[in-house]
């Protein structure tokens, strides 16, 4: 085949390039700019090289919050992915009940994040919140504002309530895409429910699950609003996750340089983990 060379084609790419430049590259570069300089005011900025990076990487506050972040995201994935699959498997497939369950599942996804935080903030209160009051009436000493374990439990429960729907809806759509013929063949082959799940449904859910895991990882890793509204990061620092630490650093203390270095590291961690996950999954697939 003969390829015609026409450099005018670059012009067609230009609009997209500009859009990406303004929405991503230029803001990111601003952060890079802050992360390698010490800026006092508009006229006095000093190049400091990797200084801020070194400082940030040695900050114990960040180590703690990074560890909390990984535990939180890990727990979120461990709970929400299996639970989402389970919910999707139990959902009715046709009729009015199917529509009803779809609507019910979609509701948590439509609620603004700070409202979700507020809902649980009130819901969990021992004096006026049904959930907190109920637990205390059962004799369980529950107070998310003073007990770190209770705070963690509430934050996780809130996230599960808020986001399991997403996984369930993704899996539901994946399950509906499996042709009836597979279930018929499986019945003919005398497959048990478990064998059907393991060998027919799960493999065909793989693609939606990859998306689900990636979305839930990235979102939970960047979580800010809900725990901020619910616990404010407390008690102590027990539910202070990375983004809140970053915000405190940048806006609270106005340490723009370290904050910029930190946000780049933060960004790279999300990118790295997502990339690792995605390539591992796709490589495993090819090797078989």
């Amino acid at each position, binding site marked *: 085949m003969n390829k015609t060379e026409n450099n005018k084609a670059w012009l067609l790419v230009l609009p997209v390039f500009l859009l990406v430049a303004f929405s991503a590259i230029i803001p990111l570069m601003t952060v890079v700019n802050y992360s390698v300089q010490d800026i006092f005011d508009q006229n006095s900025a000093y190049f400091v090289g990797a200084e801020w990076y070194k400082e940030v990487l040695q900050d114990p506050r960040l180590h703690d919050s990074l560890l909390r972040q990984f535990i939180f995201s890990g727990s979120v994935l461990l709970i929400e992915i299996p639970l989402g699959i389970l919910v999707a498997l139990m959902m009715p497939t046709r009729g009015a009940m199917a529509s009803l369950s779809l609507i019910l599942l979609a509701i948590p996804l439509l609620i603004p994040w700070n409202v979700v935080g507020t809902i649980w903030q009130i819901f969990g209160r021992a004096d006026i919140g049904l959930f907190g009051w109920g637990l205390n009436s059962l004799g369980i000493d529950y107070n998310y504002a003073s007990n770190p374990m209770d705070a963690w439990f509430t934050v996780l429960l809130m996230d599960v309530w808020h986001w399991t729907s997403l996984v369930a809806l993704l899996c539901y759509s994946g399950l509906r895409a499996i042709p009836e*013929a597979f279930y*018929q063949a499986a019945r*003919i082959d005398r497959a048990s429910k478990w*064998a059907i799940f393991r*060998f027919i449904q799960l*493999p065909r859910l793989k693609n939606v699950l990859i998306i689900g895991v990636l979305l839930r990882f990235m979102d939970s890793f960047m979580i800010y609003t809900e725990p901020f509204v619910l616990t404010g990061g407390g008690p102590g620092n027990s539910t202070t996750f990375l983004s809140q630490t970053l915000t405190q650093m940048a806006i609270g203390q106005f340490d723009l340089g370290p904050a910029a270095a930190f946000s780049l590291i933060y960004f790279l961690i999300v990118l790295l983990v997502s990339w690792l996950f995605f390539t591992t999954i796709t490589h495993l697939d090819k090797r078989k």
Partner: protein
Amino acid sequence: MAEIQLKSLAHSYSNTPSGPEDYAIRRMNHTWEQGGAYALLGPSGCGKSTLLNIISGLLSPSEGEVLFDGVKVNETDTRDRNIAQVFQFPVVYDSMTVFDNLAFPLRNQKVSEDKVKAKVAEVADILDLQDLLKRKASNLTADEKQKVSMGRGLVRDDVSAILFDEPLTVIDPHLKWKLRRKLKQIHEQFNITMVYVTHDQLEASTFADKIAVMYEGQVVQFGTPRELFEQPAHTFVGYFIGSPGMNLIDVQLTEKGIQFDGMELLLSDDLLQSLASASASGSSTNIKAGIRPEFICLQEQPMDGALPCSVKHIEDLGTHKVLTLELGKQSLKAIVDEDYQATDGQVYACFPEQWLKIYVDEYLVEVQGSEQ
């Protein structure tokens, strides 16, 4: 292994069937004997697949009973009927290898892994799949997939029956023939009841000992290929079996025989009597005479009982010729030898009574006393 009996079975996909046209399967009784090789032949949409799905339990019939060896299985789940079914379009579990696909039905019933290996090897050998066993099933071609799909049906040798739903549709013609032979061999080897659904009469007659012809949700005839050819019990069988199909002419009864377009054909007393009793009971005016193109004999000269007709068209098919004749207002097909010197002019056709079939309300009038 089982005898499969269908008792006053009917099925409608509608919840409130009002007339016969709402039924995919119209009330019928039928028995597939243990160990037989059967074909279920009929045009698209006549209910063949529905019937198969009812037997395997994928579908629950709206009326009637399905019995395996005399035991009612209507409420028994497909899993527990222990039946194999191969679908028209291949179903392979694409996350598994070919080996695991073939092993799946065995592993599901907890067969020991040694036996699984032996059985899979045996089936892979029959279907020429040995080289593919380690491959992932998703990367196969359509006919390889169908062979895997078929292999899963053949791998268990304790099944009640194996049902094939047009399994060779996506397969190459030369391979089709080979696989059909293989199926036949497997049948002879294991003595398993096999029901083979197809719309291809050649496929049906090469595979099956007995063929059930289905039409509008009913089995209209169940017999050997020869019976279907020589004694079509229903006008549809006459039309559907044979190429070209049976010539069918609307006729009226007369005292000595039948007439159409001002011409009269004389019939024997035996036939007349049977005909009289058959049509009197229904007082039907729907009477047809049918004769296969193979059985029309043509004469150059006029003779007793031969009707004059003109040759309209001659098709030379190499092994034989198909003539299109005009008889009165009727157009008939006749098959003659390759060396028949056909002329475009007038010929005289006679219809040997042995091969002339009379149908009242589309069903054959059986000749009493002289039944072959």
